């Protein structure tokens, strides 16, 4: 029998395997937020460079600050921070700057872009609930902004423990790690929820970014100046970044920072702003779930 070549058309086989449960699909949304943010240009890479530089610089300063010579000078009343307090200053002057850029570039756009590009039809015609979408977006943003604001101070706290001179000092320094984590969590919430809510309410990225920048550059400084001039420190509660710093000062035992209304009022103000932002996001997304699909 003569051998004969044959072409077999195998056709297309539909997927018949297991599907991931709907309750876990928010993780896909979160991963996509992170991947798209990382794929963008300087909006994400610049904050990354700021964060790494801050981490390296703060580690060097912490290493130097543990010298006994500084302890002696500090005991004589010189305002030199202890090595672990460097974490707070790195958070305030380095990591927060990076988070500010990320919040403006990524968080303001996260929901606003979906509204502008009709992506809610894409999402909600699939087995995805409004709460899965929102949880995924917020988790993704928290991962992006948490790289500087959470991972940065926590890693610095670990470095501080590693710089301990002996095991006893290392153990005594261990509480620095949860304090850094708490500060990181508060900072991440403050830099994720309000800008994302602004984007959701305005429905367009650029106006949301402009308003966010105006808030952080103009309104917050105006609130702090008014608090000083009118001698009403409570006005400083309007500055979310300042609220985080006030809590951070309490956590790391750093004095100053006037107007300082104390950690509990600052934490309460932060909680109110975050709750309002979350409510605004939920309202906008839940409305979009049932109204965005469909055309003429």
């Amino acid at each position, binding site marked *: 029998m003569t051998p004969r070549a044959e072409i077999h058309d195998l056709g297309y086989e539909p997927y018949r395997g297991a*599907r991931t449960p709907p309750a876990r699909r928010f993780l896909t949304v979160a991963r996509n937020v992170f991947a798209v943010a990382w794929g963008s240009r300087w909006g994400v890479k610049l904050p990354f460079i700021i964060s790494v530089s801050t981490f390296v610089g703060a580690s060097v300063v912490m290493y130097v600050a543990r010298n006994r010579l500084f302890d002696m000078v500090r005991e004589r009343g010189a305002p030199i921070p202890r090595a672990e307090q460097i974490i707070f200053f790195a958070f305030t002057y380095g990591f927060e700057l990076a988070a500010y850029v990320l919040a403006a570039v990524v968080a303001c756009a996260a929901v606003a872009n979906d509204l502008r*590009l*009709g992506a809610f039809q894409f999402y909600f*015609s699939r087995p*995805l609930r409004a709460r899965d979408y929102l949880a995924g977006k917020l988790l993704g943003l928290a991962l992006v902004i948490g790289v500087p604001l959470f991972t940065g101070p926590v890693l610095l706290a670990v470095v501080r423990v590693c710089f301990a001179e002996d095991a006893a000092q290392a153990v005594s320094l261990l509480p620095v790690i949860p304090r850094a984590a708490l500060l990181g969590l508060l900072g991440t919430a403050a830099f994720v929820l309000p800008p994302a809510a602004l984007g959701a309410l305005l429905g367009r990225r650029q106006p949301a970014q402009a308003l966010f920048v105006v808030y952080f550059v103009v309104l917050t400084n105006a609130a702090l100046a008014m608090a000083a001039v009118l001698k009403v420190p409570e006005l400083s509660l309007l500055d979310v970044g300042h609220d985080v710093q006030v809590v951070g000062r309490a956590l790391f035992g750093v004095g100053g920072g006037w107007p300082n209304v104390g950690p509990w009022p600052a934490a309460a103000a932060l909680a109110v702003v975050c709750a309002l932002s979350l409510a605004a996001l939920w309202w906008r997304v839940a409305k979009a779930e049932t109204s965005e*699909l469909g055309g003429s």
Partner: protein
Amino acid sequence: MLLELTDVAKRYGQVTALRGLSGQIGVAGRRIGLLGPNGAGKSTLLKLLLGLTPFEGEARVLGLDPRRDALAIRDRVGYMPEMESYLAGMTAVQLCAYAGELSGLPRAAAMERAHAALYLCGLEDKRYLKVETYSTGMKQRVKLAQAVVHDPELLFLDEPTNGLDPAGREEMLALIADLPARRGVGVILSSHLLPDVERVCDEVMVLAAGRLEFTGTIGALRGDSEERFAVRVKDGLDKLAGALAAAGLDARRDGEELSLLLPGGDTDAVFAAARAAGVQIRHLAPLKRSLEAAFLEKVKA
């Protein structure tokens, strides 16, 4: 059967968007046209079938209840929206793979099927370009690709030929017409373009002012019949009508022709009547109305 509706109604406050929709859809075919003027309730019906809005009455999509099994329905249905719908900063293959993952496919399977879906839709060369750089026609194709990527059993296509040039429209319609055979998927094509529906669909649903005015085959909508004929003559249409009436046949004048009911399709009696009346037949053929005329009649009714 793809859809089953029993007294489905939807109200927005005082406004009734859908009223008393009943019918079994997708019995004779798997390519269903959803026809209706703007504001007829087509989008509301699609929302309701996807379980995105509450309603009165009973509905089944692939045997599932949109109230209880909305997520299961959306797992098994693909939706191609009318409006622009894409995500910023993503290539076509990333978008389709993401769509597959959101519909529950594992990551590797979603990526594999994203490539297959884009190949099916003729975008294999452009799949690594960002969707926002695409032309209108390419965006339509990527919308179709993301709708089929998770192997749905039923597709809702909302105005799929919007913005396409004639060649692109023809390709899109050919693709949609082939989908039931190539992917084993049922298609519900919502469109106001009657030629598109006529070209692709086996069955139609006609919605007007929130009511389901008709469900059935396109032939039944047009009133196609093997016994209804159109007759045109050179001169003497009235003389022929009289001769046909004398022979006991139902003949009605409709403009410059006669509409004639011939039981059993037997045309001999027509020629006999023409001979008796002395008129010359120029045209004798089964009567077929245009879909447009039939649609307008249903909508106006």
